[in-house]
């Protein structure tokens, strides 16, 4: 579950203060997907940053996977991300030196594991890559994968810690329409299968009809829209 209640986030911009998120509230239940649309600079990414424990708002209440994020130390916020949140980045942000399998295993490996745990991690990574349609591509590095394949690795990596919350930032922006549809379908399936609360930012309105909830962000203000109405808008 993601719950944001009356959240406001500001940041300094020269001598003035910009309100990136203005008294925003939303709830994303488990197994559902909420899309946020809005123009560039409207505050979508800032809202995602709040929901993914990357930044603390000035005011309001934020609960993610049952954890109150307000007042957490940076180390505590890092632990929440590690344990409860999966992030799918806009650009796949894969590490160039790592194979697809390593991209998924890296978080567990950085923590240092026993041989048995390492084998389990790699087995799990293999299964996830197969789940996103990348069986046989485990040992390829990012430059050996297509844009769509890289995004699938990006999604699989976000699921590696079996998160209760999935934060997805414009996953189709670098893909053609067909590949974009495939990725959205995959995210929907995973959300339903795993019961994650998925918060997705997108520019592509063609996906909105498939969402459980659509919110529009404008100048930091969040307003609810019927998915079908949002398509027409």
């Amino acid at each position, binding site marked *: 579950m993601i719950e944001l209640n009356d959240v406001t986030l500001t*940041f300094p911009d020269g001598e003035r203060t*910009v309100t*990136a998120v203005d008294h925003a509230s939303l709830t994303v239940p488990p197994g559902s997907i909420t899309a946020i649309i809005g123009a560039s600079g409207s505050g979508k*990414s*800032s809202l*995602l*940053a709040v929901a*993914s424990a*990357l*930044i603390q708002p000035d005011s309001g209440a934020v609960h993610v996977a049952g954890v109150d994020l307000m007042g957490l130390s940076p*180390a505590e916020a*890092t*632990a929440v*991300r*590690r*344990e409860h*949140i999966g*992030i799918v*980045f*806009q650009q796949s*942000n894969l*590490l*160039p*030196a*790592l194979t697809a399998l*390593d991209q998924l*295993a*890296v*978080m567990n*490996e*950085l*923590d*240092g594991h026993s041989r048995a745990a390492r084998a389990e991690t790699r087995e799990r990574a293999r299964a996830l890559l197969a789940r996103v349609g990348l069986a046989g591509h485990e040992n390829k*590095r990012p430059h050996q994968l297509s844009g769509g394949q890289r995004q699938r690795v990006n999604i699989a*990596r976000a699921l590696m*810690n079996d998160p209760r919350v999935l934060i997805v*930032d414009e996953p189709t922006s670098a893909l053609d329409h067909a590949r974009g549809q495939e990725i959205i379908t995959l995210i929907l399936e995973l959300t339903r299968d795993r019961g994650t609360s998925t918060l997705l930012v997108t520019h592509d309105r063609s996906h909105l009809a498939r969402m459980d909830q659509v919110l529009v962000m404008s100048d930091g203000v969040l307003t609810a829209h019927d998915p079908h109405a949002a398509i027409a808008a």
Partner: protein
Amino acid sequence: MFVAWREIRFARGRFVLIGSVVALITILVGFLTGLTAGLAGQNVSAVMGLGADRIVFSAPAHGESDPSFGDSSITPEQASTWSDAAGVNTAEPLGISQTRLSAGERRSPAALFGVSSAGTHTLLPEGVPGPHSGEIVLGTSVAKTLGVSTGATVGAFGLDLRVSAVIDDAWYAHSSVAWLTLPDWQEAMARGGQPAWATVLAVSLTDAAQPDAIDAAAHTASRAPLPALLSIESFRSEIGSLLLIVGMLFGISALVIGAFFTVWTIQRAPDIAVLKALGARTGRLVRDTLGQALVVLLAGVGVGMLATIGLGLLAGSAVPFVLSPATIALPALGLIILGLIGGAFALRPVLRSDPLAALGAPR
């Protein structure tokens, strides 16, 4: 080390490059350290081998603060004052001068060490029979240059001396030492127009001795063996410059390695931001980064050490070069420690990298 190893394998060329730079610096530092030790040995090994607790010089000339082997001249009275003082076991006079020995048409520079014929020759290297009157003990290099062996005759200041033994070289101010009796040394000096009784005293003390008080009474200046080495003019002038160069090389190596890893880590900043956004602990990333630096350092220093040993073995016959754990392992260890300190400066981007950057959100 999970990411570190994979990055090393992925960016092999880049890491081979920095490893090569580290190896070259190691060769430079190792070779210079070996050379410094070799040159130092050629200056001081004979004095170090005296086994004395203190070296006693005549008091420095007015206006000079430090004694020197070149200017020191000990009188029999000063020697008696030291011998008779409480806490002094032995005070052996030692005459030191530099000359050219001759054998037929051949000439060779040598340092003459005149030792008391009445003494037990404790100043000579262990196991070497002391010379009797009219005899001289040569180092191998002088004997080789002169083409002489035991039983031959060599000349010094017009004195004919029979070679009583040829031993491993001991060095003083870049000259191989030739040992003769103190009376013969005194006669040689007199013939050379520089009469002297002895240059210094090599004294052995008990804990009860009060060297400063004896110095005051005898009008002498005594020094412990190591500080006394600085009274060898050639050693003092060489060692300072060489140690300065070695020190600067250590500093340069830390800067070079630090600069490399800083640039490398700055390039990795986006990846670090992603890992942090995914929940990587900063401590783990620091360990990974430092581990990567350590691997490169160990590889570079290891290759450099092997090359230095090879070059040292080759150069050892042509130049004074000491190949020992102290001249190879210690500089290598120093380079690794300094390299890690340099690499630690590269941690700033790791510590400061903002996970928010991975999401592209404004702050």
